[in-house]
């Protein structure tokens, strides 16, 4: 139940995600060395356009990527079909985008 459009969107978003996640992991490894604190995180991110863009892009890409992935799993394992399947995909997308967007706003602004 996956046409080439969703497939390509998922692959493109994965390609976008890959470097971002590598960056995120590296940051985490560096960051956790001194122990994490809200101040430390916010100090790094707040007011930074670059981190804003970084996490903004991450959230957008992961929402597309994971929503399509979840939709596939819902089709293959939960046997969702037709409208229910599409609704499921859109809800996953919107949910991730909303939660993720809020988190970005929280740490960047």
């Amino acid at each position, binding site marked *: 139940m996956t046409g*080439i459009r969703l497939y390509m969107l998922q692959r493109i978003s994965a390609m976008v995600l890959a470097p971002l996640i590598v960056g995120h992991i590296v940051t985490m490894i560096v960051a956790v060395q001194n122990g994490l604190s809200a101040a430390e995180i916010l100090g790094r991110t707040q007011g930074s356009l670059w981190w804003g863009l970084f996490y903004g892009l991450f959230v957008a890409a992961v929402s597309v990527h994971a929503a399509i992935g979840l939709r596939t799993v819902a089709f293959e394992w939960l046997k969702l079909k037709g409208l229910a399947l599409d609704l499921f995909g859109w809800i996953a997308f919107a949910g991730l985008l909303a939660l993720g967007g809020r988190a970005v706003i929280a740490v960047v602004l």
Partner: protein
Amino acid sequence: MTQDSDTLSVEVWRGDARGGGYVAYAVPRRESQTVLDVVTWIQQHAEPALAYRFACRVGMCGSCAMTVNGAPRWTCRTHVRRVAKAGRLRIAPLRNLPVIRDLAADMAPFFDKWTAAGGTFAPTATRDDPAAEIAPQSPERAAADAGIECINCAVCYAACDTVAMAPDYLGPAALNRAWTLVNDARDGGQAGRLKAVSGDGGCANCHSHQSCADLCPNGLNPTAAIAGLKRRAGRAWLRGGA
């Protein structure tokens, strides 16, 4: 192959679309014996009504595939020695296809998908033209040749969990055939074929499990063929859809 070396204990699935179960038989062991020979022995000596299918008996027609100890195989060229575990065999019809009776599966969905995937050559020349001059070593031809020796046995189709999970998925054999045609310089049906393999049941469904390539008795690699289709279809989508 331990214990009793002159008999095999064989369980055969018997039933039809409404249901069924395994029935046990003891079959004499032979030096030269394929799984098809075991099934034949049962039909000829123990169970005259046993339904199964074969034709060429040498791995050319792809009619005799069954599930043997859990995996799909061509039975006419599977020596018992290679698959029997401790003298045991469990034989069932191919998975992912409707059962007609006993070991005979209905291949119609498999061939319907072959056609639906654009697995039919679309001519651009006629019998009045000479055969096209195509260098055998050209990359396109090599790609087509790599997948052309398919006997449509449906072993890959039965091995594919994606077919099991997504019944409309065209499956490895049909897509493999489509890929050979994508690489056929003489074919005039490319646009329609690309559309067919790009759709909801198309190549994008494949998760690259590679069970198809693992079990194809002819050593073909549908996974690579499908990856090729994904590239073509993806590029076309980027051009037309982005």
